[in-house]
């Protein structure tokens, strides 16, 4: 029983990390209908910025909550700037071009950040400093850390905040208008370019925050660390219905739990049929994605839009 609960908790913890990264994906997609493949790499960039800022402030030697409160906003700011430049240089010129062109520039930016990161930061893994002391929390035999709880809370708060921005603010209304029909939005006097830039800035800021939190929980960072979490988060966003904020969080949680339980049932499945199902973890995740999408083609919470002639 303890083990089952522990697995549940582990799955939620991993899922909340995926959810955190998926939020940025889904924001950008919701407005621009662009799969921003560079998102995972902006996330990596955030982790490295957090690393350098923390070392610059001497936090690696003396962890403190006050210090952490400086590192996070600074990192988010830098990532926001990166996101802005990214949009300005690689995506805005292609706004009226076929959508696939921006997908390729997104892959290009992704390669640039990965290979550039290997050149500038070096390919060796680094140890992300503990911004504040880590404590283990044990309740009824089930163990977690204060870092994991912070991640989960942050993910929940951000989902709420983003929902509020999208549905309760003037800017959110503009975002929805641009998402719905950007030419019409422009005719209505909405500054489309500024809205899209802002969305990118928000998305990249979220990636920066996710990078720092990820660094706390999984302290090994390297220039390619964004590839797999980025891909998993992307799946999470699609699973939940890409463009839908609570959907991204839900998708993240589902992926986290599936990954966890595939490994958890491995010994039993092996005894039953002699197959190590845990070795097929990634395949099972994708299999579930395919199954869900075949039955709900727009993801779990996405709205299905029948094609019009």
């Amino acid at each position, binding site marked *: 029983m303890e083990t089952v609960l522990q697995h549940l908790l582990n799955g939620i913890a991993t899922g909340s990390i995926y959810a955190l990264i998926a939020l940025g994906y889904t924001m950008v997609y919701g407005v621009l209908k662009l799969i921003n493949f560079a998102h995972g790499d902006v996330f990596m960039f955030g982790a490295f910025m957090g690393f350098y800022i923390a070392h610059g402030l001497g936090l690696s030697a003396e962890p403190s909550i006050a210090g952490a409160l400086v590192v996070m906003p600074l990192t988010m700011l830098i990532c926001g700037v990166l996101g802005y430049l990214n949009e300005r240089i690689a995506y805005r010129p292609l706004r009226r071009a076929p959508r696939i*062109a921006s997908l390729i520039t997104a892959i290009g930016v992704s*390669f640039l950040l990965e290979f550039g990161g290997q050149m500038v930061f070096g390919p060796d893994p680094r140890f992300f400093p503990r911004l504040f002391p880590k404590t283990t929390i044990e309740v009824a035999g089930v163990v977690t850390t204060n870092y994991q709880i912070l991640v989960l809370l942050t993910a929940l708060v951000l989902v709420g905040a983003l929902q509020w921005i999208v549905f309760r603010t003037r800017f959110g209304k503009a975002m929805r208008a641009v998402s719905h029909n950007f030419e019409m939005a422009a005719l209505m006097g909405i500054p489309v370019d500024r809205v899209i830039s802002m969305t990118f800035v928000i998305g990249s800021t979220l990636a920066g925050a996710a990078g720092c939190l990820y660094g706390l929980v999984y302290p090994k960072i390297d220039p390619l660390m964004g590839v797999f979490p980025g891909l998993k988060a992307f799946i999470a966003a699609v699973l939940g219905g890409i463009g839908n904020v609570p959907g991204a969080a839900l998708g993240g949680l589902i992926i986290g739990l599936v990954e966890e339980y595939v490994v958890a049932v491995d010994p039993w499945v092996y005894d039953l049929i002699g197959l190590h199902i845990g070795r097929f973890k*990634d395949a099972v995740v994708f299999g579930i994605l395919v199954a869900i999408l*075949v039955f709900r083609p727009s993801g779990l919470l996405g709205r299905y839009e029948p094609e019009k002639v």
Partner: protein
Amino acid sequence: MRPTVSAAIALAALFVLFVLDRILPSLIDPYVFQVLIYLGINITLATSLNMVFGIAGQFSMGHAGFMAIGGYVAASITFFGGPVAGTAAPGLLLTALLGGGLAAAAAGWLVGLPSLRLTGDYLAIVTLGFGEIIRVIILNIETVGGARGFSGVPALGAFGPLGSFFWVYLVATVTVVVSIRLVGSSHGRALLAVRENEVAAEACGVNSTHYKVLAFVMAAFFAGIAGGLFGHFLQYLNPNSFTFIKSFEIVIMVVLGGLGSVTGAIVGAGIVTILPEGLRRVKDLNPAGTDPRMVIFAILLIVLMLTRPSGIMGTREIWDLFRRKPRSAKLD
């Protein structure tokens, strides 16, 4: 064209391939020859992806998976079947390549099914998922080496008198010719109609279900054969060669060249194959000793896409460039 004329052209093409196969290895050094072989394989991959992505408009990001299936099945046929058949004749290689292609085509049929319900980015992520599933499954099959890879695959040149160049460029030529003929055929028109507007195509009596699956099956078939050539040329296969990054690379070739254009796919394959090799010389100029070639490649990719958003060829073919007026102008 009359059948006899076609047959004559085909024979002449075979003869040219055979002659080049004989003389090229002594004309150019093995490194350039190897890049040339990869170019041929990548042309096949890009042209085949163009069938499903460019012509039929179905966004597939799992092409490396089909390549992997073709590669592993073909290698298994020659590796395990060779000793049984007791021969290393060209027939065995041909059987292996076709077997790999057919296995990949079967997978293509399976992957094509979700395309009946999914469109655009959702389809893209599902095909990417299929590609990864295929890779993970191969990773767990011990008989073909699993993570350690499949070593000891017989070389392409080990089957009778025909060398690597002949086989690779024979397949590339067939794929290109099939692609070009496809666009001009009624099937191709139906595929284009599905790409442009599925509902309207259905209304005109095009069975879009049939055509979408057909496009996946054909694309997977040729990608599978390309995988077989790849494995036999390298004499080694490893699941890590077929990650989603490889699929991205093939998508880049097609989009860079111009989505829907067959010659564009060839141009794209050329750029993605040769540019990183050409950039190797850059590091000799860099006193710091680090190799910036992939960074430069990434920047060039972005710049190319920004300057030619519809790809280098757009939707045109190379012969369209020599026409006075585009065909559509006649309608005005």
